[in-house]
């Protein structure tokens, strides 16, 4: 079902544009130019975040926390989607996708966002430095998701 959504959506947008007699092609180009500016602006932020998530992973600092299996994921998830997916896949490989940690990590992974990454990209667009409230509230939300995830996993297994 979900494989139909995207192609249909694109089709509908183009058809609406043509129906309303807009210059669909020029508007698309205009959007791509806007997108290029966005890419240019967010890149430094992505770069900075990738550096710290890389350090966390490569220095081996997360290995100390490996007692809980899930802790590296909790630390990594707010920073990087790619790196946390890698951690989840490791958990799947070692424990199986249906194990306690497998299920717990799947739920955390799917019900939280890359909070700090999202905030730094959004702040890049508006040049406001003080992001204290969004960071605190986002992390409170993540913490809630982790606690609830743990409870639900315990119930399910």
């Amino acid at each position, binding site marked *: 079902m979900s494989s139909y959504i995207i192609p249909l959506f694109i089709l509908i947008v183009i058809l609406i544009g043509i129906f309303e007699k807009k210059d669909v092609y020029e508007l698309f180009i205009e959007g791509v130019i806007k997108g290029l500016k966005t890419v240019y602006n967010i890149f430094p932020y992505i770069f900075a975040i990738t*550096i710290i998530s890389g350090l966390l992973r490569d220095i081996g600092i997360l290995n100390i926390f490996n007692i809980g299996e899930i802790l590296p994921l909790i630390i990594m998830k707010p920073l990087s989607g790619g790196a946390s997916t890698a951690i989840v896949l490791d958990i799947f490989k070692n424990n199986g996708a249906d194990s306690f940690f497998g299920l717990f990590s799947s739920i955390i992974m799917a019900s939280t966002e890359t909070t700090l990454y999202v905030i730094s990209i959004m702040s890049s667009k508006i040049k406001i430095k003080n992001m204290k409230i969004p960071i605190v509230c986002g992390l409170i939300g993540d913490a809630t998701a982790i606690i609830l995830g743990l409870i639900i996993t315990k119930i399910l297994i």
Partner: protein
Amino acid sequence: MKIVWSSIIIICIIFSLIISSPSAVLESITKSSKTSIESIVTIASMLLFWSGIFNILSNTNIISKISTKIYSIFSFLFKKDEVSSKAKEYISLNIASNLLGIGNAATINSLNGIEELQKCNKNKDRLNKSMVTFIALNTASMQIIPTSMISLRTLYNSSNPELIILPVIIVSFISLCISLISVNILWRRYE
């Protein structure tokens, strides 16, 4: 962000100097720089496409009608005088693409949305409440069906990959509510 970023770097470097190998630092930075270039190429490739498509959409007349409808469901979250009609459009497009799980489309609309909110922000150096709320919506996961996680679970031989759907909906919804409640509490203190 300043504190988060610098403290992670400091902790990691001190850790590498004392416990693991110091040479890993440069190795890691070199590797990450390369990864970040790769990831911006991946992000750009889809972001540019969606940016073009949504630019067509946001220039049509029908979208303002549809977005007012979607926005009216969520309007209680925002303050009237802080949201322009253009911002309403992007907010509703952002929420819709988040719910459907079209990540790249959500990203481009979140950036356009926050930019429009900033345009009608009275004090440009300070976030207003609608902006904080909008960021909170984006730092929470709103995707209804966690398709990518389900496919990963299938790939790793889960006997029941769809088991996570209901838990994820419950957990994301409650954590979104908690996050929005904390926005309200902290905002009152901040003011």
